[in-house]
């Protein structure tokens, strides 16, 4: 039995932030978990994938799946939740973009059982190409109650709380994390795993509940707003919003949440200061009275958060509404007309993750105090060093090397444009490979190629992995047929979702396998080849040459198992 399933209340075990979310869900009695793998959220799926059989012995209703993409995962989790079950869906930041179409609607209807949505952002783009997206703005747009835990113990406790809140108000609840919070490990004190109830809920027909047809949809919006107002009232009293050094007479206070809170406390420890700190457990809806009461005692407040200012904007609006004279320190951007921001200086970055020393420097700057260490001098010394970068590269023995080698041998690299996609093959951007002229999001390589080939008439070779193909590649492929363009699409089929830790996908699942070539043909593509590029490099080269001449879209499926997975399977 895995340690995460131990039913020993009070025992301490070591968990990553993400693993603690799983434990929280287990302690809440979760019935249904769905996800599409994406780092920094991957461990949620990986954990349930490993323990699903053991957990079924505790909760026979339990179902876990890797869904084809995040939208599908969220819809599936909602299906369980509107039938009265407890569901959890997990994804990385960009996954929420994919699922947002559904999320904004689901909030209107709410759910029956309970539903928790876990989303992890990646400040500094440690594991994410694409962008440094700040998911917190979705909370405002979709009106989804959102929690931000700081450390592993809170990840577990907040998740359990989120399930209860969701059940109480029949509304999905989001837990928003960041890389450093999710990939932080520490001791977690376990709670009890409940005995599963044998009663099985059912979907109950009710035309007023889940069908968002006008004019009912506007009533639903009103009901959503009413729920949020009630939740806000509850949040005002909740002890998940904590004040530290509340008796301090200092006139500078700090408002923060998530992993930034830990940096704040570290900085105060280093500076030997006891400034009042309001740590928000909820970032939507904000406990406005609690915040105002905190601010009223202060002359100035430093808002510590990562990426673009979310809390800072909300607090500035709140202060303005209440006519509160308080100086707000935070990010550098001028907002809301700029007038009240005149005296303000940017002291925390909007780009890149925070570090404890950034917060210490910010506090020192405001208070005109010396930091505990000469960070500036040290940084100057450090920046003088010449350190060769060691970016990741395709593994030794990776079957993609054979694709790279064949292309370099037979394709005019100057003339042809190479379209990238999210997966291990985005490492084609490495300077020793250099086969990536653009890279955006999952599913985009082929649709962008279509736009290029329809206008500039340049030839484009696009890459897409098998898991990405199932995720978002199919509509783009159909579009090349429907609207007639001629990219050469290379589907890199390594029979796994390699980059995020070898999760299965529909092409290799335990159940019925969906064959990539059958889908490709069914989409209307006439030129299709399936080649093992490692075993038959010459055939692969020949295929490339032949298809580059075609006036219509063509597909080569490069089928060879991921080298790491092959090794794993053997041992």
């Amino acid at each position, binding site marked *: 039995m895995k340690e995460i399933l131990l039913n020993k209340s009070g025992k*301490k075990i*070591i968990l990553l932030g993400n693993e603690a979310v799983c434990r929280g869900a287990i302690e809440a009695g979760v019935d249904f978990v769905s996800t599409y793998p994406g*780092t*920094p959220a*991957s*461990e949620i799926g990986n954990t349930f994938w490993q323990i699903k059989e053991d957990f079924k012995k505790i909760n026979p209703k339990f179902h876990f799946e890797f869904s084809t993409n995040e939208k599908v995962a969220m819809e599936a989790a909602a299906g369980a939740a509107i039938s009265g079950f407890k569901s959890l869906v997990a994804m990385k930041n960009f996954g929420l973009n994919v699922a947002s179409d559904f999320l904004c609607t689901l909030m209107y209807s709410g759910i029956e059982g309970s539903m928790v949505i876990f989303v992890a952002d990646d400040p500094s783009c*440690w*594991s*994410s*190409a694409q962008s440094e997206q700040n998911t917190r703005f979705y909370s405002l747009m979709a009106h989804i109650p959102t929690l931000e835990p700081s*450390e592993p113990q809170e990840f577990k406790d907040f998740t359990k709380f989120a399930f209860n809140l969701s059940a109480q108000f029949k509304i999905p609840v989001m837990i928003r994390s960041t*890389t*450093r919070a999710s*990939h*932080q*490990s*520490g*001791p977690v004190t376990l709670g009890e795993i409940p005995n599963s109830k044998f009663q099985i809920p059912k979907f109950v027909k009710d035309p007023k509940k889940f069908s968002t047809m006008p004019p009912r949809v506007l009533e639903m919006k009103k009901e959503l707003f009413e729920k949020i107002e009630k939740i806000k009232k509850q949040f005002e009293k909740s002890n998940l919003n904590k004040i530290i050094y509340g008796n301090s007479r200092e006139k500078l206070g700090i408002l923060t949440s998530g*992993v930034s809170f*830990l*940096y704040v*406390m*570290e900085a105060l*420890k*280093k500076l030997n200061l006891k400034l009042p700190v309001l740590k928000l457990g909820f970032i939507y809806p904000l406990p406005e009275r609690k915040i105002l009461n905190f601010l009223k005692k202060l002359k100035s407040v430093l808002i510590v958060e990562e990426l673009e200012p979310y809390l800072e904007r909300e607090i500035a609006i709140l202060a303005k509404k209440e006519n509160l004279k308080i100086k707000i320190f935070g990010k550098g951007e001028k907002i809301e007309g700029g007038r009240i921001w005149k005296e303000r200086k940017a002291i925390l970055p909007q780009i890149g993750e925070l*570090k*404890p*020393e950034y917060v*210490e420097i910010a506090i020192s700057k405001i208070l005109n105090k010396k930091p505990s*260490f000469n*960070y500036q001098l*040290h*940084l100057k*010394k*450090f920046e003088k*060093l*010449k*350190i*060769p*970068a*060691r*970016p*990741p*590269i*395709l*593994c030794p023995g990776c079957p993609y090397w054979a694709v790279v080698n064949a292309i370099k041998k037979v394709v005019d690299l100057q003339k042809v444009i190479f379209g990238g996609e999210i997966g*291990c093959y985005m*490492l084609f951007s*490495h*300077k*020793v490979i250099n086969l990536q002229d653009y890279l955006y999001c999952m599913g985009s390589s082929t649709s962008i190629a279509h736009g290029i080939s329809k206008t500039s008439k340049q030839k484009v070779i696009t890459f897409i992995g098998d898991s990405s193909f199932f995720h978002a590649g199919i509509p783009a492929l159909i579009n090349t047929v429907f609207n007639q363009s001629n990219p050469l699409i290379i589907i890199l089929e390594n029979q796994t979702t390699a*980059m*995020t*830790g070898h999760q299965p996908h529909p092409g290799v699942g335990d159940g019925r396998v969906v064959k990539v070539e059958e889908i490709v043909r069914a989409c209307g593509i006439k030129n299709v080849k399936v080649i093992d590029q490692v075993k038959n490099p010459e055939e692969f080269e020949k295929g490339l040459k032949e298809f580059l001449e075609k006036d219509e879209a063509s597909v080569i499926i490069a089928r060879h198992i991921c080298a790491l997975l092959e090794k794993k399977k053997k041992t």
Partner: protein
Amino acid sequence: MKKDFNLIIVGVGGQGQITLLRILEEAALAENKDFKGSELHGLSQRGGSVEVHFRMGKNILSPLVSQGDADLILALEMQESLRSLYYASPKTQFLLNKLIIPIPGENIVPEDQIINSIKNFTKKIEIVEASKICKEKFQKEVLAGVYLLGYAQKRKLLPLRKESLEEGIKKVVPEKYLVENLEALKLSQS
């Protein structure tokens, strides 16, 4: 322990940094200390630089070690020690595994140049032939990490008991690799 203990382990993806972090955490848990670890997954693997943080003490807040605040830096690869100088100051002790893994498309930074750069930050430098020793004894370079942990413990640079490290290894390392890991630890103590 009066002060927090701050450790950084740097190296290249695949050298086992995350396993080492887990061993340290289990050892700290066994001694009833508070601790936090920080690691990165995904893009940072695949042969790229990997850096993990381990902090231990009475009440650990930040999972990240602050700039210049490392007590000990274990470099599993020598060139990677340069990147870790962000965390180094005169109080920092370096233990360097005598190993260079070339970076595709880059020239190798020679050992003396690396040492000179470190000397600008701290004088406390020790080179350990961990990879070489583990290759000779066990035909397995990846054991260098555990060897280095054990070595740090023996040199009193790591405030954890040997028995706790042993316990950590037993909890973290899969059964079939357990004996060699325990032997590497034992060897580092001799």
